[in-house]
């Protein structure tokens, strides 16, 4: 987990530095704000990972000498198949259409998205069936 945290910390460090230099040289608002945001995007997860990397024992994926058996056990829960991503996608597309034409598609899209959210939650409880 250490190297993972360093990657994000580097993002935070670099954009903190560049953002500071840029602000002092230009006093330009838009770019400085975006660089500040990027600094946060790197440093917040970076410190979180770093904090954890000092408290957890190395995972098999971090251990150069780990054997494949060390990874035995639960890898993760992977849903088999699900209709809901498709329905959310259709719903979002309808909502987007409504942003252009301001039409009835908004209601349809919103209904599809809401219904899929319910569907996804119940699917997670039941465990990933169609």
């Amino acid at each position, binding site marked *: 987990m250490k190297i993972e945290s360093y*990657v994000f910390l580097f993002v935070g460090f670099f954009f903190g530095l560049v953002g500071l230099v840029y602000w002092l040289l*230009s006093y330009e608002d838009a770019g400085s704000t975006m660089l500040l945001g*990027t600094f946060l995007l790197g440093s917040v997860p970076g410190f979180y990972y770093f904090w954890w990397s000092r408290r957890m024992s190395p995972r*098999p*994926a971090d251990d150069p000498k780990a054997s494949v058996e060390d990874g*035995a056990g639960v890898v993760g829960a992977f*849903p088999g198949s699900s209709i809901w991503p498709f329905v959310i996608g259709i719903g*979002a*597309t309808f909502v987007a259409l409504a942003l252009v034409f301001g039409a009835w598609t908004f209601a349809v899209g919103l209904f599809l998205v809401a219904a899929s959210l319910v569907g996804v939650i119940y699917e997670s409880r039941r465990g990933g069936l169609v």
Partner: protein
Amino acid sequence: MTLVAERPVVLVESPEPEHEHGPSGLLKWITSTDHKVIGKSYMITSFVFFLLAGLMAMLIRAQLANPDSTLLSQHTYNEMFTMHGSLMIYLFVGPVAFGGLANYIVPLQIGAPDMAFPRLNALSYWLYLGGGSLMMMGFLTTGSAADFGWVAYAPLSNSINTPGAGPDLWIVALLLTGFSAIFTGVNLVSTIYYLRAPGMTMFRMPIFTWNMLVTGILILIAFPVFTSALVLLWCDRHLGAHIFEVSGGGVPVLWQDLFWFFGHPEVYILALPFFGIVTDVIAVFSRKPIFGYRGMVFATISIAALSTSVWAHHMFTTGVVLLPFFSLMSYLIAVPTGIKFFNWIGTMWRGSVKFDTPMLFAAGFLVTFLLGGVSGILLASPPIDFATHDTYFVVAHFHSVVMSLVMAAFAGFFYWYPKMTGRMLREGLGKATFWLMFVGTNVTFLPMYLVGLKGMPRRIAEYAATDGFTTLNRISSAGSVLLFFSVSIFLVNALVSWWKPVPAGDNPWDASSLEWATTSPPPQHNFLRIPPIRSQRPVWDHNHPEDRIIERERPRLGGLVASANGGTVLLDEVGFGSADTIETRDPDR
């Protein structure tokens, strides 16, 4: 293919469905959360957009082949170059890499059963398909499709200068694909952080996976800015927000700032995956480990970081940007890119290079990208940029770059097609594709440098015979015909492999990374068994026990360890397991 030690993976599977079979046919495709199915859907969809955008480019070249041409109206011409750029950038080059190839290959390369969030991954694809369809729907509206250029500069993109539903469809389409890309970025980073196989440490990942990690982070940096800028633009057009309009106290240049803060990292979101493909392909076909592995990783991260601090070099001529800062940062990108070139050449150096089709495309990438990159260094200089801004010189520069990426994409297609389908593509047709594409690219785009230096502005539908642009434009148009045939031959190649399959076997290229340890195509959840991972080349270690290269503990010398093997050393006595545990299975050849 040799494999040892069954991996006792226990997946928490969903309870068995009541029906004995899952869904089939169309429903199976729609409900699939398998990263391989989603990756293939992404690749096919984005390739369709590539063909459409290519046809638009053919129309553009046909229009410009003659002076005072009346083939297309001015208005249609504007639609054509806008939609050509939009389809190519937003719907092809990016999605084919981070949605298609990365989606398919990254979990395989790190020994993962799937992406970290399979349903989110499926949602990415459907948002992408929905967004792409909406963008194309612009052609069906009564006005026209978007015609303000792929950059949609304010105030051209406001509701007075470009009214109608077509531009609005363009905006909401990119909102959808923007979210799609962000979800894919989240998925890539989480997959690489949490689902690596035991022993697959960060510094053993293939460079393609490393580059996809960095691309994922770059997506997270860049796309939210663009997506929110599009919301602001929509508010301007529909709610009269006056954010980008001088009349209401807004600032048009703010759009350029927001757009290019996305737009320049986007260039590297497009480029980094293909750098990764080329790195892996060169190493495999030179039959050597990557030269300077850590240098490559360092260069990738530096390129990504620098690319986010150079956005305003697209805005030199606005007169409101900090020229020295952006010029210097732009020049600096040449350093890590140079390191990459050095390492690519170092990887080939004294290797036994085999010029199969993927390697030819990788070599074509090196040449073409060098041309595009060097002209980019010229443009980083404000005085040169002032003279060439908005001329065909700039068009030539970024087409050299992007066409080199297309070549790298074809390197990836030819390299991984056997893994994805279990069939080989024909070498002869592949080489024809390459040579037509390589010659076609340079015949099309090198004259554009010259015509740009002669002063031809970009985005003009007509020029006069007396301008002296005719000959160079005709050469360009002739080159585009070569590109057309090149892509057609690739399609023929795919059809031939479909009708008369040549089985590929598990590892036709004798490659070294983990995706070649499983069957072609891989089974559900990818691996039945995983070989032990003791170096950057786990599969090579197994197939070439005479050549066992084991990672050594890096000596703490306080300096860079740069050995010819990229920080690895031969250790003969370290075994993976006795010979009787090695199971050999012949490829289906």
